[in-house]
């Protein structure tokens, strides 16, 4: 029997579902190897009850309805894969802001009015509510990483994702270092790899969209930042744009 798959989106930009649909060359193979039984974004006839072998979930949890939906997906699924930075780390909707969320709500929707009755909570990553078996970060997740992870899972393995920084991929590509050569606040040294150092390849400093790497040489980075007359906050602000909940949980030293 082909493994049963579900694809779900919580609050977010639909980016991971678009990345899955962007696997134009592999979609026929994926459809051949699996049975996609629950995918509201792609089908108006879904099986919302049966157990799933794998559930791919994108987006962050922003309200009680989504929390309930996520718990239900967890009950059904043998493996739950968090797809994208929102699902893994909270994403941009969970970013640090200069003022409390209530004030931002008033700013965006005005005071009084219907917005006062809405269930607006801080956005949280999936792991704050349920067990996550595998996490593919990235804003959006990279197509190659999704395909590799899917192939691993279909073969009975859990995916192995990079535990080193974007900086390493950038060096392997022999890009000019934006931090050292051009003095730009690049988040590559503290951001987890997997994108092939996409932004630096375009001479654009990394913005940290994949979330923090577990081990990074913060001391050396801080030394370079001082040399280049850059402030550490410029880097930590980038990381906290995409992964504030994870950084708060880990409370990792120095920059975060």
């Amino acid at each position, binding site marked *: 029997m082909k493994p049963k798959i579900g694809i779900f989106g919580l609050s*977010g930009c639909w980016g991971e579902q678009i990345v899955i649909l962007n696997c134009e060359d592999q979609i026929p193979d994926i459809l051949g190897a699996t049975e996609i039984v629950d995918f509201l974004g792609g089908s108006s006839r879904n099986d919302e009850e049966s157990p799933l072998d794998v559930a791919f979930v994108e987006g962050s949890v922003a309200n009680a309805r989504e929390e309930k939906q996520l718990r239900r997906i967890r009950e059904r699924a043998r493996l739950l894969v968090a797809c994208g930075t929102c699902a893994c780390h909270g994403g941009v909707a969970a970013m640090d802001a200069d003022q409390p969320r209530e004030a931002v709500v008033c700013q965006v929707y005005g005071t009084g009015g219907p917005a006062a009755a809405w269930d607006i909570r801080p956005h949280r990553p999936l792991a704050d509510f349920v067990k996550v078996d595998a996490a593919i970060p990235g804003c*959006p997740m990279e197509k190659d990483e999704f395909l590799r992870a899917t192939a691993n899972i279909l073969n009975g393995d859990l995916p192995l994702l990079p535990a080193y920084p974007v900086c390493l991929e950038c060096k392997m590509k022999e890009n000019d270092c934006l931090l050292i050569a051009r003095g730009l606040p690049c988040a590559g040294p503290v951001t987890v790899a997997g994108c092939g150092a996409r932004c630096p390849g375009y001479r654009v400093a990394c913005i940290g969209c994949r979330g923090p790497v577990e081990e990074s040489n913060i001391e050396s980075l801080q030394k370079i930042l001082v040399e280049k007359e850059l402030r550490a906050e410029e880097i930590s602000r980038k990381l906290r744009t995409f992964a504030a909940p994870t950084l708060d949980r880990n409370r990792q030293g120095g920059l975060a």
Partner: protein
Amino acid sequence: MTQTITVDHIARVEGHGGIRVVLDGNEVREVAFDVFEGVRLLEGLVRGRSLEDVTGIVSRICAICSHGHSITSLQALENALEIETTPQTRKLRDLAYQGANIESHALHVFFLALPDLLGHPSVISLAGVNPEAVAMALRLKKLGNTIQEIVGGRAVHPVNYILGGFGRVPETEELVALQQEILARRADCARVVEILRSVKVPEFVRAPVRCAALAPEDDAFFFGDRIVVSDERGTIPVSEYRSLTNEYLVPHSHAKRSAHDHRSYMVGALARLTLNGRYIGGLAREAWEELGLALPSDNILMNNVAQAIEMIYSIERALHLVSALLETGVAEEAPPSYRARACRGAAATEVPRGILFYSYELDEQGRVAAADVITPTAQNLSHVEDQMRAAARAGAVAGVPHDVLAQRLTVIARAYDPCISCSVHLVRR
């Protein structure tokens, strides 16, 4: 006695939305297109961020229109800072928009809308009976993505767009390969027309479609600084876009609504062809004639046909732009110089689903003091409800069973290609 028709969660649209219609005999008491996507408050959250950071954050409003969000954001900043763009930058941005339009329309026409018209729950089941059509749709979609990757550095959430231009301009070899690929895909256009011709677009809703679109600047169909509206003489400058959109809130939706002179309007492919059809020539014009799309139309479902015509337009336009770029050669250009200062600016472009508005207010250090984003879907929500009201009333009078009526209402919602994730990020007045 009243009866309620509900669709809890509309399938095959981007984001989370539902429908609730209350009927009292043949009278429609209430129509609500509920948007319950979690609010993300991005326009509020970017306050205080530097003008260099903001574009990379707002692009995350929407995946499928992320190139449009990035470029419109940059154009609003450029407008504020009085940065002039070069012809090369304008051509490359135009090219990216054609890629986005091809990708987005291929996805919507073939993967999200066509299953309705052919009676399938999804494209997966459609692939079972017509694998060749699905393979072609995938090829076209891929072409759109390839264009976006070459210009923007990534298909979803581009990385290469910066103030005034690009981190790195495409290499000549990339453009030559792209030219070949577009030429190869151009042959698929006849097949697109053939498939669309075989489809009978339902006529269960007949109601006037009031349109708004940007007046194209020269021959750039998706760019302009004035807005045209169906029944109005004269145009509205983009800098005064709030007089078009007039946003208001309703309790059942996390997205704001728009009304112009207290009446709803529609933006998107059908609106563009209705108002600016004279700019369409070549293969797209031939396709238009073969498909017999008469405009203005009072059948909103024709938006799907308009998208197919526009997709063909974008394939030809992309070819034209790539050839023009190869002819002049693509060169690295110096980044623009500007001075951070207190200023404000606005911009609008036509993204696949319609007009996208951006405006910024910057403080003296170049930080965002206020941001305003109005997406096409947000503008369309009131129009969707008006069309649903018309369909519900016609259905009730004709005694259409409620399950059929519910299905019709979802087909109407889907015809607009709504992007609900996009619509919940609207901004303070």
